[in-house]
């Protein structure tokens, strides 16, 4: 039955990508509150267009692109609220050594800088360095040219370097 095949298709995509996709949404949103909902709604949108997605990889890329788009819309609508909220860091594990604290705070600074960037730049960096997507894949998912994506990523890394430097590079090894 069509329904059974459709369920298998959905199950396969869900099982392979649910956790990383929710995590992607978490990174783009800066929190977990809406991440699952956006990942789920995005998956439903991909499900609706499954007949046009020839391969599993195409479905994964489409799901990611849909998550990025929905996160952007969500952030735009909540921009005012978000600006007034402090950045939420992950809790510090117990019993950390001094070096672990340094790493922890450096990573927190990096995430903080990331969320101060323009949405397109943040999305390009997250897709490139969290999803390990090649620049061409990032370009396809963001609807940009590959050259633009390469430029966005390069500028993003320079901005990260400069901002961390301004903040004193206290945790640089």
């Amino acid at each position, binding site marked *: 039955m069509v329904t059974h095949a459709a369920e298998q298709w959905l199950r396969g995509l869900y099982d392979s990508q649910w956790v990383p996709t929710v995590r992607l949404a978490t990174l783009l949103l800066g929190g977990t509150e809406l991440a699952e909902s956006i990942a789920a709604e995005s998956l439903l949108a991909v499900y609706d267009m499954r007949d046009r997605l020839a391969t599993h990889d195409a479905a994964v890329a489409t799901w990611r692109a849909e998550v990025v788009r929905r996160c952007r819309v969500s952030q735009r609508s909540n921009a005012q609220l978000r600006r007034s909220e402090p950045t939420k860091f992950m809790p510090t594990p117990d019993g950390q050594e001094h070096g672990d604290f340094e790493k922890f705070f450096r990573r927190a600074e990096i995430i903080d800088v990331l969320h101060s960037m323009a949405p397109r730049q943040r999305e390009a960096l997250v897709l490139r*360095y969290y999803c390990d997507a090649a620049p061409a894949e990032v370009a396809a998912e963001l609807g940009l040219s590959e050259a633009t994506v390469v430029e966005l990523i390069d500028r993003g890394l320079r901005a990260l370097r400069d901002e961390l430097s301004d903040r004193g590079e206290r945790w640089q090894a």
Partner: protein
Amino acid sequence: MTGELSRYADDLRAALNAEVSQVEPQDRFEWIWAEARFGPRRRTRRWPVFAVILVLFLASAVIIPSLMAKRDTTDPLPIATVTPSETPTATPTPAGPASLSTIQRGLPVFYVGRDGLLYRELRDLPTQGSRLATAVAAVLNVAPTDPDYVSYWSPATVLSVQRREDTLYIDLSETAFENWKGVLQAKLAIQQLVYTAASAIGEADERLQVVVLAEGSATLPVLGRVQQPWQPIGDSDLGLVWLDTPANGEKLSGSFQVSGQMQGVAAKPTLRITNLETRKVVRDGAVPVELNPDGWKRFAMRFGLDKGKYEIQVSALDASGQRRTQQRLVTVGDP
């Protein structure tokens, strides 16, 4: 990229992974699948089955003009109230004609098959005020005759059934929802109710919608405050073959009819009748079908068999080439 920037890229990668390493989302597949099957995006605009029912209804309206006149009005249907003591029970087909005022004949009641798709049984049931109220009470309280079917509703009282324009408001007592163990079951139950109610009123209008209330509240168990109203879901979630007659367990005379419908995509339909006592196949062959204007195919065949217990199987290939079968166990008595 310079070596210096590569170091920042590595740091960024590590920071991103560390940031979400502790994010462990809940398993939401059941909800997603339920939405995929029943969500608004998947509401089809086709109502083939009910188009046939409408044709039949209109035909009957010629014979009973008063029914037609009532149906054409835009006034809401009167509220039908069913008390617990009026809970309908399955009624065996009587030998002689029954009064139309006490028995609703051939009332389609929808159940869920083992494959998670919807199937119907045509039942003769005691009238509960109106055909619609009888059907709604039946889907809650009348068990399927086929052991392969289940209902995700629990016995309950229909507090009211009301129609306002294209929307049916069905208010049920709390016990109706006790069998809901998950989102998927809940939504299948809703679809049982939606199809049963819609077919009971012979409503082919694709604008028909159903709002389900739990003792007056739109917040339902398991589903919470969901977006209502509901609409029929379309062919993809209906069983491929509906075997209308005979009913499972029915006692037949020597001559009887095997009839039903199958979806337009159904291919190579076959019928097989096996004598359960001798294990011999007594009938086996292709099923002739007639194409309905709505794209579904109907079939009706008459057989004469000796006394005994039989299994009747009607099957067809679905769109993926898999054969889907419906069966009934019947007893043939003296002619």
